Structure formats: C-alpha cells, structure tokens
C-alpha cells in the first residue's frame, strides 16, 4: 500500500462526473496530505457531497483519476474498495444509522465487517463502549436510532466513523439542521476526533463557523476542552465549489482575503 514517503492521502486528478449527460463535477483536481484538514464549502447542489462519495467509491468518476493512500483507486473492484473503505471513516449527513439495529450494533457494524484482523467479541464490545464514551453517549447502547434526537444520531454516527480508528475521516454536513448549541457540540467532537487520532479530515459544510473551529481550535486532552490553536498548526485549507467546479482552494488567510464575491459569502466577513 502507501509508503511513509508518500504524504498524499487523497488525490483527485481532473475528475469529472456526469449524470445522464449533465456534468455535475468538472475538472476537480486537488490533493490532501496526511494530517491535513480540508473544509469544503459551496452552495447547495454544487457537488460537495459527490466528492465524498467519489472518495469512498460509492460512485465512479466519468473521467479523471482518484488516488487514495498512494494507490490509483479509479478502476478498483468492489472487493478492493472494501479494503480502502476500512481505512476511511464517514459521517453521513443524517447519520446514516441503520434503523433496525441498536446503537451498539450500529457502532459495532464496521468492526464486525472488517476482514483484516477480525476482533474478538470482547474486544469489539470494549471498542464500541470506548467510541460511544468518546461522544458522551456510553449510556445509549441498547437504544434504537429512532429513540435518539438528531444531534445524538450524529454523535452515534461519529462514534461509528471513528471506531475503526481510520486514517481518513469524511464528514458530510455534520451540523446541518442542528441548533447552534448542538452544532458546536458536534464540531467539538470532530475537532477532538481529529486531534486525538491525528487523522486526515475532510469536512463538507455550509457554516463558516464549522471551518473556523477546525482551523482555529485544537483539542486539549488535559482540560478536555477546545483551546485556541497556534495559527497554521491545524494545517487547515478551504475549498469552495460552484456548479461543480473548484473556484477557491487555499489557506485560511487566502480564504479570508479572497475578493471573489461568491467565495466571500462563505468566509466569516
């Protein structure tokens, strides 16, 4: 697989995606280094979620190449994708929890399905409890997703995404439709998840506050709270999409200074 010499976790090279002749992503090229944080913003239907789905192999590009962990994954078969997916954690917009399974079964699902290094039942239980404690929902093991609030479902989704300790974490609009307090709690957990495991993080969001939190704060384990980070220490970059094209890709300073009227709408000015 990838070598330590190759710092690129993900590379999109001229990726295009069409549905029924209509181009929804056009010439998408970017790369994400190990340990980096990428915040993807853009208007609705600009193709943000599609980038995450392409990165997981849930849809295939019409043109272009996708490299994951140093390997060209564009032509991978489903079995090969499953090996790559085991290294990626994903939080879907609505959580994507299975209605018919309890919280415990939902969080254990990725551990039960991973082929490499199968775990014992005891180890699975321990990892699930640990993961749910991480999102402060250790007491909800026997509940079903329908019994949880929207914010709790997202937190269980985060627990499921991090339970395999993945190298790459993808978040699809984790705060969409949540009240500001719950949204901040979710974002704090995402920052905590990133800093606890030093995982590469890609987050799609509509809210500029979410990007700011990822960029300007870090998780302090000694105080168990978010504290201001040294400028540039979180290695965060911003990407802005418009109608399937990248219109901005750069550092937080460049993002704040960008004069483009469309990009400025997503910056905190």
């Amino acid at each position, binding site marked *: 697989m990838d070598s330590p010499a190759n710092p690129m976790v993900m590379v999109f090279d001229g990726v295009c995606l069409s549905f029924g002749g209509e181009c929804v992503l056009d010439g998408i090229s970017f790369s994400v280094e190990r340990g980096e944080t990428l915040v993807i913003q853009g208007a609705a239907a600009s193709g943000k979620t599609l980038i995450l789905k392409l990165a*997981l192999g849930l849809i295939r590009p019409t043109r272009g190449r996708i490299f994951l962990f140093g390997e060209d994954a564009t032509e991978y078969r489903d079995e090969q994708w*499953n090996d790559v997916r085991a290294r990626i954690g994903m939080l879907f917009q*609505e959580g994507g929890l299975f209605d018919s399974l309890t919280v415990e079964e939902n969080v254990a699902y990725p551990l039960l399905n991973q082929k490499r290094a199968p775990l014992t039942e005891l180890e699975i239980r321990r990892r699930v409890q640990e993961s749910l404690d991480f999102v402060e929902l250790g007491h909800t093991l026997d509940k079903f997703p329908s019994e949880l609030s929207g914010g709790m479902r997202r937190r269980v989704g985060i627990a499921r995404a991090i339970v395999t300790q993945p190298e790459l974490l993808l978040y699809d609009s984790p705060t969409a439709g949540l009240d500001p307090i719950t949204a901040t709690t979710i974002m704090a957990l995402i920052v905590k998840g990133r800093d606890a495991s030093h995982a590469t993080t890609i987050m799609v969001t509509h809210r500029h506050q979410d990007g700011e939190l990822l960029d300007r704060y870090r998780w302090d384990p000694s105080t168990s709270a978010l504290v201001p980070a040294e400028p540039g220490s979180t290695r965060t970059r911003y990407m802005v999409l418009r109608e399937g094209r990248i219109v901005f890709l750069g550092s937080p300073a460049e993002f704040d200074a960008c004069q483009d009227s469309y990009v400025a709408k997503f910056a905190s000015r």
Partner: protein
Amino acid sequence: MLDLLKRPVYTFQEFVLLSIRSVRGVFRKPAYWGDTLIQMDLIGVGSLPVVCLTGFFSGAVMALQMSRALQTYGATSQVGKIVAITMVREMGPVLTALMVAGRNSSGMASELGSMKVTEQIDAMRALGTDPVLKLVKPRLLATAVVLPLLTVIADFLGLVGGWVVACVMLQLAPGAQYWETAWRAIEYNDIAQGLIKPFCFAVVLSLVGCYYGLQTTGGTQGVGRSTTQAVVVASVWVVVLTFIIGRIFTKL
C-alpha cells in the same frame, strides 16, 4: 421515439443487472441466514392469514358460480374436478402471488427505499457490505421458499372452500364424490405447473420490490412512488408470466 424508449429500456437493463448480481449472490458468501429466516417469517407467516382467506373464498366462489352452469348440463358431480384443476393450475398460484405482491413487494420497496433516501444503503457500502448480498439475497431466497408453500396451502383451502359450498351449502354432490373427482383430476403436469409458477413469481416479486426500493430517489415522496411502482409492475408480471408458463405447459 428513441427518447420514449430510453427510460423503459434503461429500467429493464438495470433490473436484469440486479437480477444477475442477486442470482450470483446466492452462491456467494456471506450467507446471511439470520436475515433470510427473518424474511421467511415476515413473508411466509405474515402472509398466511390473507393467503388462507383468499384461497378459501376463491374456491368457494368458483364452486358457487360453476354450480348453475353444471346444473344446466346435469354435471354437478364434476364440481370437485373443476375447482381442483382451476385452483392448482391457475387461481392458487396467481392469487397467492398477487397477495404477496401487494403485501411484500411493496414492503420491500418501501423498506429499501427508506434506507436509500436516508443514506443507509450508502453507509452499508461504505462499511464494506454489499447491499445485494445483505438485503436482496435474503428476500429473494425467502420468497422463493415460502411462496410455493403458501400456494399449496391456498390450493388446499380453495378445495375446502369449494367443498363447503358444493357439498354443505348447495348439496350438489356427496362429499366423498367431490374429493374423489378432485383428487383424480389433478395430474403431475398440474402439480408441476402449480409449483413452478409460484417459484417464478417469487423470483420476480422479490427482485421487482428490491429493484424499485434500491432505485428510490426524492425523499419520502420517492418512497411512495417506488412502492406503488413495485406493486403494479410485480402484479403485471405475475399475470404475464402465468400466461407464458401456462402456454408452455399446454404444449407439453
């Protein structure tokens, strides 16, 4: 003209591809026996009351309607034979399949459709599970096993319904004669036809339900649309298939 044909041809192509993947999936691991047993319970045990009622009353109605015609020709002794042949060859398999289409194809489409619009199918794939193996295969296997069994039950209850009307209510023929003519009328060809049909219907019903579920787009409205389409398409296929299989068997 080409644009008009594009959509149905595409739908048929996707359905065939799902069918091939599902049938290949039957021989692939993991087996998901637990899910298959749950589906057998839902489809088989769950459909039992409605199938029993339908079978009983279809046999009863047939005996009732035939009684007048048979009295005209003085052939009331043949009522058992007519009920048996019609139930085993046609009415049992078709009515049972239509009941299961209404109950379970719609259920599969709505369940899988809801999973699709709430990103559970994507999550399943992202977590390394093939939805065809986990969701379609158990439903296909379960329906293929229980539909022929439900049909046998419906056939028998149809004969009982015919007996109640012909022998108990109208007293057209003695009970022993009814059962004797019914028993003698059924040939191996009829039994084969009566079991092959539900098996073919089962494959189509489950795959149609799963196909429309997995193709769902457009939120809760889309789930409703998929459910309706699944029931309509599955029911039409039942009627078309019964004609095709019936035609094949009449040539044998």
